[in-house]
């Protein structure tokens, strides 16, 4: 078992005063699967006029904050202590044939299990895309078991897509990423999800954090300095959801901390808001995920 201390700081400096700000935050790590939320604390500055929380449709913890007075800056600091149970990712079984799973997703209109079916349909940022489907399908020879097929796909994606920040933004479509063969974690996750769903395999989008390594450390992860994103794939009843990181070519072990699950980024946006005023604003984000001794 590993224990981590997460600190996620977001700071907005507004160019003009904001008179009213409404925000929804999906920052608190979920306590599901191998992950346990030991403690957490959310600090919002200025102190919101009202703050409440609820569980969304996907079971994620959402904070709803309203700042109903004039302010020039907003800062949000999330601190959490997480425990992750050990997992031997090398020994994940091969699972059933992938087309058996996709056949059960067909299920003559009634897929089984029904609750994973939601993640087999297209979603706003992971639309059907013939190029993504064709690309992903190369790793899914009929009759092959699902986990080796996924490992093959992760390996290919790591080689075929270049990790380049700044070439994509939140409006970038799967088709555009397929054309550029470049992007960031979010883009790779959307490509993989779109292709898998094209094969009628349920795939979820996961937002979360990665363990931080000191700069220039060998073995440090890509994308550890901010929120990260990866993909969770349904691998049948025995294995369940298997988290895969196409950015780092791996099956997720004990160095990924999941914050929220959804169909794509639009379901799990860490900080979404409507403000009155504000003008141009600047934004800084810092994430650290440090291992701590279990007590």
């Amino acid at each position, binding site marked *: 078992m590993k224990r981590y201390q997460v600190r996620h700081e977001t700071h907005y400096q507004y160019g003009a005063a904001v008179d009213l700000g409404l925000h*929804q935050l999906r920052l608190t790590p979920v306590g599901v699967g191998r992950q346990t939320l030991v403690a957490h604390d959310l600090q919002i500055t200025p102190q919101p006029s009202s703050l409440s929380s609820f569980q969304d*449709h996907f079971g994620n913890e959402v904070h709803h904050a*309203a700042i109903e007075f004039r302010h020039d800056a907003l800062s949000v600091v999330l601190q959490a202590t997480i425990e992750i149970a050990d997992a031997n990712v090398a020994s994940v079984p091969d699972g059933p044939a992938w087309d058996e799973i996709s056949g059960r997703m067909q299920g003559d209109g009634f897929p089984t299990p029904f609750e994973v079916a939601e993640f087999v349909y297209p979603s706003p940022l992971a639309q059907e895309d013939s190029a993504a489907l064709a690309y992903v399908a190369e790793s899914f020879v009929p009759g092959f078991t699902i986990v080796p097929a996924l490992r093959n796909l992760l390996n290919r994606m790591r080689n075929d897509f270049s990790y380049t920040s700044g070439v994509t933004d*939140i409006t970038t479509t799967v088709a555009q990423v397929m054309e550029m063969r470049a992007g*960031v974690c979010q883009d790779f996750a959307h490509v993989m999800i779109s292709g898998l769903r094209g094969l009628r395999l349920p795939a979820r989008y996961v937002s979360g954090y990665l363990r931080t390594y000191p700069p220039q450390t060998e073995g440090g992860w890509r994308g550890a300095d901010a*929120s990260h*994103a990866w993909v969770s794939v349904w691998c049948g009843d025995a294995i369940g959801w298997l988290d895969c990181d196409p950015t780092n070519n791996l099956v997720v072990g004990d160095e990924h901390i999941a914050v929220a699950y959804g169909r794509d980024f639009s379901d799990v946006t860490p900080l979404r*808001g*409507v403000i009155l005023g504000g003008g141009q604003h600047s*934004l800084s984000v810092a994430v650290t995920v440090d291992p701590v001794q279990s007590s």
Partner: protein
Amino acid sequence: MTETYDEMVSGKGVLRPHWRQTMAAIWGMSPEILQEKQARAAAHLAEVDRLLISEDQTGGNPPDWSIDLLPLILPESEWKIIAAGLTQRAQLLDLILADIYGPQSLIAEGALPPYLIFNNPGFLRPLRHVAPVGAAPRLYFYAADLVRMPDGKWCVLADRTQAPAGVGYALHHRSILARTFPEGFRNAPVRRLQSTIELWHGSLRSIGAAISGEPRIVLLTPGPHSSAYLEHVLLAQELGIVLVQGSDLTVRQNHVYLKTLDGLEQVDVIYRRLDGEYCDPLELRSDSALGVAGMIGAMRAGNVIVLNVPGSAVLETPAFAPFLPNLAQRLLGTGLTLPAATTWWCGQREPLAQVLQSLDRFHLRPTFDPDTAPIDPSHLSEAERANLLNRLQIAPEQYVAIEPVSPSLVPNLGTTGLEPRPVVLRACVIWNEGAWVAVPGGVARATGSGEVSRGGLKYRASVKDVWVMSDEPQAPAQSIAVPAAPDTRQLKRATDVLGSRAADDLFWLGRYVERLDFGARLFRAALGRLAASNLGPRDLAEIDLLVAALSRSGWIPESVANLPAESQMFPAGIVGAVADRPFVDCQNALRRLGLAQRDRLSKDMWRTIGYLGAHVGSKPSASTDRPPVDRWPADAGDADKLLPRLDGIVTNAATFGGLVAENMTRTAGWRFLEIGRRIERGISICNIVGSLIASRSTWVELSVRLVFELCDSIITHRKRYLTDSYSLPMLDLVVSDRTNPRGLIYQLASLQAHLDTLVGQDPLAGEKQMVDGMVAAVLQALADGISSESLVTLTGIMRGDLMTLSEKIAQKFFTHIDPARSFVFGTRNAQRAIAS
């Protein structure tokens, strides 16, 4: 050919009893009278449509629907069956909605395919687990499009659960028929719609009582650009609730508030006519400027009730139809009494096989897009058919197959005499205290052929009122107006609440009416002279002056103003300007504002706005920079043709002013309208005096006379000076004479009075002082003696001051309503928060 049911005549060729009275009335009239009535009804409908449907929407064509004098008539006994069937469906659909947004056990247990929920654009995830407050249902208002099958039974073509239209139109059609076809109502036991409205208002109040003892209820509309805006205006008026757009509302501390001039007022119930996905940019579509950020949060906190709940459109997919009979057994323990037309969802093997095997037996519709016209495979080309079959193999779940029904026929009077037409009925039920009540009427559409296997109100049709003939005689209409026991709650209806946006709209409506009036006066003066042949030097000098004034007020472009009056292109430029910007912009703005505040304006006021807003002439097809040279002297004729319309604008603007003065209650809304008018009239007077007197013309007398003509003061002048000669000092009549309502100081004095009473407290003290100063300046200038220089200086200053005053009032009252200043992030901009 399938047998069809005839609404009017039985199989034995006998008139059905419930049609007898109406047809007797019809047959009692000559074809000429009938056609005259038919034309009158159409004119009533068109009068409203002209305001509702902007010309850019229709490309200048009139709307392609009409109203028919002959209603669809149903006997009470049949209506009861329909009402019971609708009630049962509404109950069932509300239970399904509760499950979809709650435990989802129907999906878990295989009663509803997950695809139909999870891939359904109507399924709004943020509404999951948001429980209704108190006893409020999720589905409050439900409508269905129905057709009658050959066996005489009705079936459902489409369930309407989003925010269905119907009752407002029904009221509208009923009032048109009451005026044009009173013979039809005479002695006929036609069930009235009014009782439903009363009940409806009561039911909204009782639902709101879960939040507040005196609940504030609003109708949320997307605004004047919505195709159903007429409905929203009529319903808000009838229900006595406030008509609001998203920008009228704000959320504080998880409560929804209405922004009024007196501050924020809590809203307890929102009768929603805005599509669910647009309701809240924070949680739903972030690009929506029509909703209210935080509305879903307020619902979640139990502080506001929204009816129907956003997300109710999930039920509109026709693919639910095959699953409803089982769901009725499961949830209600009974079968459906009002079934849907035979429908198959192609996402299952067996139905798909059936459809592929005998494609021509069905009409195909997309699973999730109810507004798309159905495909009739028998009308497809070979290639289209192959393409459809291919799509059905690849993505069968995207299709629904419906066995077309042969709808019943209803007599349609039309313009050529009675003919049978297939009919679709839109009928509605409303939730009331745990039960459902059917509205005894609706909207019937007599369609052409090929259009029937879908519902909807948008497509081409002849609309008909729906008469339910009661078994009992109906009380005469007059008794409705005098309720036996006056309900004090009714007296407290809330339409007098003035939202900040309404104040803004009325203020600008006042300004635009005056602006258009002065524009029309200037154009009329110029074109009247141009239309005359043989222009003498005096005419040319006057035209010169008028062009300076037109240009100064921005009505004509420089390119036209700089043409010499003798130029052949000049008249064409002036004529063209009446059909071009900014004159047309002014008319459009006026129409838009009038429409937005339709619920505050009387029918007569609305009619004058309709006239003022109707475009004059047509835009010249050639570029205005280079009008064809050969148009002169034809343009003298063009100019002459425009004159009656410009006269009409001036007269209607005067009528509008009269209605404002005589027919509007003195609410804050009236005051803002008046302030807008006074400010604009003041600015126009300054423009005219300034430009005419400052002109290089040496004909001072001409200038003064033109000022009087444009300011409608010639008669006053004659009476006062007993002469037809004009000199500069006489201009005090339009500058500083307090008794002339067309004079500058009169406008300032009115503004003084309005600012005094408007709020009666300090917020306006600065503005009041400013106007006081303006009045003093005018009087001082007069005392100093009138010269052209002093007049030009004075009007220049006054014009600037009036514009500043307008801005100050806008800042004070209207600034916080600008939705453009809100900005959604976390979608587009969150990218930078996600470095990886």
